[in-house]
Structures are given as C-alpha cells and as structure tokens.
C-alpha cells in the first residue's frame, strides 16, 4: 500500500501530470477515450434494444432514418439498419467488438514483438539475424495484406463451422502478426543501446546471468517507448480490424464490429440510407482520432529530449 501511495505522490508532481494538465488535446482525448471505454463495457446496459434478440426486431421498422430527419422516430434515435436493428444499440455492440479486437491484438503483438525484440537486441548474433530477416519478410507485406492472407486462407482451410467460431480468434491473431514487427524493431534498438550501458556492465561484474539482467534492469527501461507504440498501434489495430470487416473477412457477421456495420451500410448507400454507414464511420473515426491524439501527446511527454 505504501508504494502505491508513494507512486501516486510521485505521479502528481511528475512532469507527466503537469504536461497532461497543460495540453488540452491530451486531457480531452483522455476523457473521450474513457467515454468510449465506458460505452463499450456498459453496452448491454446502455443499448435500448438487444440487436441480437431476433424476436425484438420488427422488420417493418427497417431502414428508418435518424430521429431528427423527417420520417424518423424518437424510439430509434439514430434510425435503424436493413434488418430493423436500432442503430444506437448495434453501434454500441459494434464499438465493443472493435475495441475488443483492437486491444487484444495490440497486447498479443506487444508480447510477441517485445520478447523477440529483447532477445534479438540482447543476444544478438545469429538469433538476431534470423528474427530481423523474419521482420524483413514480414515488412514486405503491409499489415492489412498479412491480416488478409491469414484470415482468407484460414477461411479456405478450416471447414465453415469451425471457422465461424474461431474467426474472432483468427482476426486477432492475424492483426497481431501484422503489427509485431514495430515492437520488435523498436525494442531491439533500445535494448542494444541499454545493454552496452555501464549500469548493465556493473551488474555483469557481480556475476548475474544475462536473462536476469534482461528482466531486472533492461526491461523497465524499454517500457516507455513500448507504451507509446502500444497506444498508437491500438488505433492502427482498430483500423485494420475495421478494414478486414469492411472487406467481409473480419469478425463473424453474427457479432458485427463497426467495420461490418460500415460495410452493410455501404451496400445500401446508393438507395439513400446514408446513416447506416456514416454514423458507425464517425464513431470509428472518433475512436481512432482520440487514440492517436492521446498517443501523440504521450510520445512527446515521455520523450526525454523534448522534456
């Protein structure tokens, strides 16, 4: 408990808290992010209607415009989609799915990337070469393409039923595999610098093994660059997921994400129901924008040179 108090006290006086207070973009985006998180977590409570409970749907209400447009009803504030689902509810669940996939894939790529980066940076030699060659091959295929291939191929390899259940997992793994290189390269760079620093040499002199030094001394020093990449790459992961779902390859249709909603909306774009695609689109952009805004601030705040 004491250390918690100590860290809290240290946080309040730290430059980080001070610069957070000073830059409006930072605390506004932080608040917006919290709001998004709240909406996603509390989706079942907030959503006026459960979009997956087919009984509650009324096909007659399908494709109704938002309340403020003539022909809209107050009951469906943002109108309804092609299957008569209330836009507000389906968007809340969509947000939840997008965030789930975004955060999960970021964490996975973080774990994979950081470990490989640490090993490559600290051990060096052949292992470093192998990892970096793999990173090169990976880089030749941009994130979207890698996710696409993995997702698409798993679709052809696995029988349809199995694919349905696993598709969520496949998407997360696909996006994670596409983004690990970023972490690996940065962590490798930072590790190579830190491992030659004298405080590591001092510990080597008392006979401590490489692995222990890696985790006791080097790891804490690579956390801030990793934190910055993680924040920025959540935005990227959400975008990748949305793109995959838009191309019809992402999360299963049974549990749509914002990307799926945008795709469904896009199919009816020409028959005039613009809100089905535009509203989820705006929600998505709002999410990614605030993540990037917060990430930019975090990078400058943690960057020793700019302090």
């Amino acid at each position, binding site marked *: 408990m004491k250390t918690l108090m100590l860290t809290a006290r240290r946080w309040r006086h730290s430059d980080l808290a001070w610069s957070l207070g000073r830059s409006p973009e930072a605390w506004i985006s932080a608040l917006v992010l919290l709001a998004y998180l709240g909406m996603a977590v509390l989706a079942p409570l907030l959503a006026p209607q459960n979009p997956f409970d087919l009984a509650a749907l009324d096909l007659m209400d399908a494709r109704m415009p938002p309340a403020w447009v003539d022909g809209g009803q107050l009951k469906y504030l943002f109108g309804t989609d092609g299957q008569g689902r209330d836009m507000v509810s389906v968007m809340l669940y969509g947000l939840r799915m997008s965030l789930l996939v975004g955060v999960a894939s970021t964490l996975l790529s973080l774990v994979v990337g950081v470990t490989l980066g640490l090993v490559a940076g600290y051990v060096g030699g052949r292992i470093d070469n192998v990892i970096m*060659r793999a990173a*090169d*091959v990976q*880089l*030749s*295929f*941009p994130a*979207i*393409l890698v996710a*696409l*291939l993995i*997702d*698409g*191929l798993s*679709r*052809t*390899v696995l029988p349809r039923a199995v694919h349905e259940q696993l598709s969520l997992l496949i998407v997360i793994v696909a996006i994670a595999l596409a983004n690990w290189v970023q972490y690996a390269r940065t962590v490798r760079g930072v590790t190579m610098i830190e491992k030659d620093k004298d405080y590591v040499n001092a510990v080597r002199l008392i006979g401590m093994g490489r692995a222990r030094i890696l985790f006791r001394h080097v790891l804490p020093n690579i956390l801030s660059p990793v934190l910055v990449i993680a924040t920025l790459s959540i*935005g990227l992961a959400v*975008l990748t997921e*949305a*793109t995959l779902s*838009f*191309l*019809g*390859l992402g999360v299963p249709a049974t549990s749509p994400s914002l990307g799926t909603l*945008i795709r469904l909306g*896009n199919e009816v*774009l*020409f028959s005039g129901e*613009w809100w089905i*695609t*535009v509203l989820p*689109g705006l929600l*998505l*952009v709002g999410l*990614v*924008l605030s*993540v*990037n*805004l917060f990430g*930019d601030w975090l990078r400058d705040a943690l960057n020793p040179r700019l302090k």
Partner: protein
Amino acid sequence: MMLRFLLGRLANAAVVMVLVSMLSFSLFNFIGDPVSNLVGENATVNERDAMRHALGLDQPLPLQYLKFVGRAVQGEFGVSYRNIEPVSRVIASRLPATLELSLVAAVLALGVGIPMGVYAGLKPRSLLTRGLQVLSLVGISVPSFVTGIILILIFSIYLNWLPSFGRGDTVMLGAWSTGFLSASGWKSLLMPAVTLALFQLTLFMRLTRTQMMEVLRSEYIKFARARGLRERSINYRHALRNTLIPIITVAGLQLGSMIAFSIITETVFQWPGLGLLIIQAISFGDVPVIAAYLLLIALLFVVINTVVDLLYFAVDPRLRAQR
C-alpha cells in the same frame, strides 16, 4: 566498396524471395486440395491418383518445389480456379490498373506530403502548420474505406460530378490498358487516387516535419547561422538536403505498401486492379492467384527496396567515398 554493398543487398533480396516462394509453394500444395477442385468432389480414388500423377503431385517435395520455381520464373502459375484462365494472363490484365492508380497516388502523396512537412518543420508556430497537423491527425485516423465512402457520398451521389466506380474507358497501348488518355479515365481515377494517397500523404508530412525539426536543431545548422548565411540557404541548401536522405528509405517502403493499400481503395471504388482480384481470390479460395500475388508483391517490395538502397548510396557521400 560499392560492389560489396550491392552484392549484400542482392543476397538479402534473394533470401526474401526464396522464403516467400516457399510460403507460396506451400500455399499452392497444402491448402485447398487442387485435385478435388479439378476432378470434382465424388471422383473415385484411382481417378484422383491419375490426376495427382498427371499434375506430378506424387513426386518428392523438393522436386515439386523446383518445378514450381521453374514455372514461376517463366510466369507460369497454373490456372485460376475462379476465372479458369492462366493466372499470368489474369494478373497481366489487371496490373496496369493498379500501377497507374498507385503511381498517381504516389506522386500526390510525395508531391503534397513532403512540401507540407517541410513547411510545418520550418514554421512550427504558424497557424497553417497547426491546421496541417490537425489534418494529418485526421488523415491517419480515418480508414481509407471511410474516406472513399465519404468522397463517393459527396462527389458522386450528392454532386454527381464523378463516377463512383470503375475505371472509365481505357485505351489499349499494346498489352497495356491505360486510363490516362481519356477524360473519363481521369475523372474516375481522381477519387480513388486521393483516397489511396491520403493515408500515405499524412505519413510523409509527419515524417518530414519531425526530421526537418531534428535537422534544424543540429550543430552544423547552428554553425551555418553563426556564419551569417542567408536563411534561405540554411533552410533549403543545408537543412532540406539532410532531411530528405532518411525520408528516401521510408518513402520507398511506404510506396511498396501503397500496392497493398490499393486493395481497400479498389474494393470501395470497384477499381479493376490487382487489389480487387486478390479480394475475390481470397473469398473464393483461388489459391494459384493468391500464391502468384504473394510472389509478385514480394518481388515488387524487393525491387523497390534495392532501388531505394541504391538511391541512398548515390545521394549520401558518406557511403560512397570511403576515406
């Protein structure tokens, strides 16, 4: 010195190509049983074996791989399941559309992104720079398919100025179908090119800006100022030249990824290029096309990578003339 550098790069490229060809070979053979596709689900066992023999699938793996590479080198990738046409012809017919789109988008991204980055780097405080920064933040936060949809909404549906899909009428120059020569070609090219370019454009702008500000803080710029050189020379002759060198490598890599981003843009605008082809191939499970596409992208990446390195070598004297 130059030769050793070149050989190093080529060796590196060869390694990447071999790895990718193995990947695409394994795709080819182990995924989606080609035999059943050609022979039909209910064929008898010996019919299957006959087909397997005809296709040479019963030979030892390395031999199959070598034959696969042999055929790939001559551009022979087998037959597309979906279009029942040789894969090479399918790809050749779609290539010009993607290359033209990517070219225009690349010119747009480089031509607009870098100068904006330079301006933002030189005048960090100006209002325009703040505006550019907000624009750039929005640029990387909006997925390209949303940009596409919004452009279609405004310019096709609402204003009806531009077609919302297809490539307009194209002119055949030998085997190359180009959209550059017709007005409708350009009109239909405009929106997809902007959509494709926007993401890269913001990336270049942000990159150039950070790099420019880094260089402006350097010691030799401070020394140039101490020598009373004109502001114009300090900014462009000294600072800009040192800024562009690192940008080249990243620009090269980004342009390579432009081809992949075209997948989304081509889907939104139904642009008949490789992007659309690969989407259809993936959802259909058309393995030969996927395998060929993989090899093509890897080749493109390796070529761009080597060209960028050579360019880097040519521009940066520190690499060229060793003491």
